[in-house]
């Protein structure tokens, strides 16, 4: 029988998702097994999965998709005219007029590439975007994995390394392991809400000497999970650093539409790059990522993402575009992406919900003893720090888990609330954190906070 020893050591070395995280989200069916618990339903805010938490999809998008999937609906009046018209247009972009055909190319449907390029140009105040630089894949995780795979080369001190923020999205360490790349951590400044510090970037880079070959720097803006939104200067600093140190810049901008901090605005890396003049705009290799899992759509399960690759070597870009030749990206989510980048009307009121939620959650948590929550300016998570009782930390050691994982396990068991343990975001220091997604209907959020509070206070009594 094929045994573990015969398997790929790179795979064996891939860090396992923690028991809490296991899958991105468990199915709702599982909550029926929890019928004997003191709570009715599990509230899962551990991932950026807003639909799971009760947020409703955007009607227009779903109406368009329904008509695309079942074109008989194009002739019926129970769907609004504008949705039907959009569906008709999108079907025209599908081979054979069917969403069941393969994407026309390995990198996606050309018409949708064009729509995305137009969106980017409009977003960035006219900075040109080339449709040939746009590549689709089933989710931003996949787009990132494709880039990491493309960059995987070298042994020992020549092995590709990626500067990675701490904390980072909880799936990123696993992706790097799988792609065979070295993770080089750089700490984000918690007391400044997760800001990037140039000295820290330099320090991190120093650690790679003779050990590995840093070729890329990853950053998410708005920050996942910190909620930090970079200002122009910060973005310029990172670009200059990437330029000087010879790094490909991987900018994860999936939460670009979720910015709510006072006086904060989203500036894309692309825009800032091009506004820094030719010296940078014509040289820095930048790949930006966006997806349907964004705050405004929350369509995580549809698996749709794209990247824009700028200033890449043309021969290399050709390979990147051809990576999915034998399994082209799914059509359905590309159509949803087209509607996302080309909405019928300006942003809807659901945006207000997120900013209120984040503010409310932060305030509430700051009132709990031992909890410190930095204000989030954007993104969909908050990432409060916890001071956990010494006895609990000891108990966790005995059980062979990290203390924040134990906290989350107990919370799930006792109160039916699933949060993310901060260690999943790569945070190795003794400051424990929890990760909460604030994309939920306000009353679900209130319920969740109430249960968390009850648990937390009980915990502090149990472990004085």
């Amino acid at each position, binding site marked *: *029988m*094929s045994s*573990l020893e015969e*398997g*790929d050591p790179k*795979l064996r070395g*891939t860090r*396992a998702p923690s028991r809490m995280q*296991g*899958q*991105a*989200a468990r*199915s709702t*069916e599982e909550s029926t097994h929890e019928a004997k618990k003191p709570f009715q339903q599990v509230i899962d805010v551990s991932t950026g*999965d807003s*639909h*799971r*938490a009760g947020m409703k999809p955007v*009607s227009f998008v*779903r109406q368009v*998709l*329904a008509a695309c*999937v*079942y074109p008989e609906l194009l002739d*019926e009046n*129970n*769907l609004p005219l504008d949705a039907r018209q959009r569906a008709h247009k999108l079907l025209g972009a599908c081979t*054979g007029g*069917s969403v069941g*055909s*393969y*994407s026309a190319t*390995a990198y996606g449907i050309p018409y949708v590439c064009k729509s995305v390029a137009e969106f980017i140009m409009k977003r960035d105040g006219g900075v040109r975007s080339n449709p040939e630089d746009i590549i689709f894949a*089933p989710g931003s*995780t*996949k787009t990132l994995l494709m880039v990491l795979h*493309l960059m*995987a*080369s*070298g042994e020992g001190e020549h092995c590709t390394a990626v500067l990675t923020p701490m904390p980072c999205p909880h799936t990123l360490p696993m992706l790097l392991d799988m792609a065979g790349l070295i993770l080089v951590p750089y700490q984000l400044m918690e007391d400044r809400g997760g800001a990037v510090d140039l000295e820290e970037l330099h320090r991190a880079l120093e650690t790679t000497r003779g050990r590995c070959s840093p*070729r*890329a720097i990853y950053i998410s803006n708005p920050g996942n999970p910190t909620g930090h939104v970079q200002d122009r200067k910060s973005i310029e600093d990172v670009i200059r650093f990437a330029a*000087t140190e010879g790094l*490909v810049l991987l900018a994860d901008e999936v939460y670009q539409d979720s910015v709510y901090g006072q006086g904060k605005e989203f500036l894309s890396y692309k825009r800032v790059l091009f506004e820094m003049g030719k010296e940078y705009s014509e*040289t820095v290799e930048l790949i930006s990522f966006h997806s349907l899992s964004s705050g405004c759509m929350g*369509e*995580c*399960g*549809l*698996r749709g993402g794209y990247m824009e690759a700028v200033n890449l*070597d043309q021969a290399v870009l050709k*390979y990147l575009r*051809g*990576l999915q*030749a*034998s*399994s082209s990206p799914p*059509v*359905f*989510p590309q159509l949803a992406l087209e509607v996302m980048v080309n909405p019928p009307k300006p942003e809807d009121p659901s945006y207000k919900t997120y900013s209120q939620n984040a503010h409310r959650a932060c305030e509430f948590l700051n009132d709990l003893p031992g909890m410190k929550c930095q204000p989030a300016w954007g993104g969909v998570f908050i990432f409060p720090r916890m001071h956990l009782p010494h006895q609990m930390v000891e108990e966790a050691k005995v059980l062979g888990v990290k203390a924040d994982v134990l906290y989350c396990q107990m919370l799930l068991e006792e109160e039916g609330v699933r949060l993310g343990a901060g260690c999943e975001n790569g945070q190795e220091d003794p400051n424990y954190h929890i990760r909460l997604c604030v994309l939920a209907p306000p009353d679900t959020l209130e319920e969740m906070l109430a249960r968390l509070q009850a648990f937390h206070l009980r915990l502090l009594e149990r472990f004085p």
Partner: protein
Amino acid sequence: MSTQAVNGSVSRGKVLTLDTMNPNVKKVEYAVRGAIVQRALQIEKELKEGVKKPFTEVIKANIGDAHAMGQKPITFLRQVLALCSYPALLEDNKFPEDAKQRARRILAACGGHSIGAYSASQGIECIRQDVSRYIEKRDGGIPSNPDNIYLSTGASDAIVTMLKLLVCGEGHDRTGVMISIPQYPLYSAALADLAAVQISYYLDEDKCWSLDVTELKRAVTAARQHCNPRVLCIINPGNPTGQVQSRQCIEDVIRFAKEEHLFVMADEVYQDNVYAEGCKFHSFKKVLFEMGPEYSSTVEMASFHSTSKCYMGECGFRGGYMEVINMDPEVKAQLTKLVSVRLCPPVTGQALLDLVVNPPQPDEPSYSMFMKERTEVLAALAEKARLTEKTFNTVPGIICNPVQGAMYTFPRITLPQKCIDTAKEEGLAPDMFYCMRLLEEEGICLVPGSGFGQREGTFHFRMTILPPTEKLKDVLQKIRDFHVRFTKQFS
């Protein structure tokens, strides 16, 4: 990497270059979307711009995309997907009750009752249960455990995942993977990308592309000199050859796999596409279990299926699954970890798969229309398979094996020496040269046999049998005329 120029500004070469990128990616080729398709797209563009050509459209008979060629989707499937996409339609009385019932069940299994929520990374549990039931029914009651079912983004995703899991080792110990020649180039591409060793075994063209165990033995024995053979891949019904393996052959392959300690990967995506009289689809799993516990409890296997082919043709949805059998529990844990990294397969693809394994039953309102549509699609394909074989065999210089199943024909073409020499001068494989000429003169896009592998000195092309019957007749005629012309021109 970075140099300070005289004026103080930074200048450097690119970071990501052909030298610093993943060297394996450079070795990957996938002929189905290769150079000839690029030229076909270019010609389409020229036609659109009004350039005059001897034809008015390019017929893309290179890719197994049924809907692209005008095949209609199955109504029931699309109705349920529309209901899942926009659940407000559940109030619309134009949708049949059985479609609504399926949609409600799928939505109940989704987080927040939305297909927009992530699912478990192995796939929605109740869908995996439905897949197991389907497999049990298909295989005469042989049990299938939903825990062994992994839903995937098309079968290709599952195939690549399995290969990632199995390929390891260095030098002499590097994993060798047996693949048929000719083969579907997903396999050769994946092996190149993983830097696995490809072990080619030849199908017998003179015996209708059948598989001979002595050839398997020859290939694996030779391979043991330089690698560690661990995997045997087989496509049944075959792509590009269309052969449907006999039950005896499948038993022989299983026996061989056990003797040589090989993991069997059975690609069965065309399992409903069987046309020839006397041919029947036998699932590898069924045969394995009917060979008794000596085999059924030891031989490690993964079977693959998808929503892209058969009667559905829903390639764009990327629905698929694999069933793993007799996998070491620790290896299975690695597999589960591996699939969790990409979060989950598209939920719409999972929903579609659920309908394929759980279609309307005789007592349900959609049953008769569903069966009518399904039968029509499969009957049309069977007819086109016969027509294709018959027509090509009337052409001097083309020999066409019966298209027993799948969606393609892979006829052998005789090419005059002058053609071979001219092709060499132009740096093209002779069958690529032939296909390019056909494309330029008739606007028909095929894939040359060199993209799939063939015996040295032989030439083929792969054509899909998907165009509508009348158009297919026209295509066959044009290829016949072209071949005669071409042969004359190069003699």
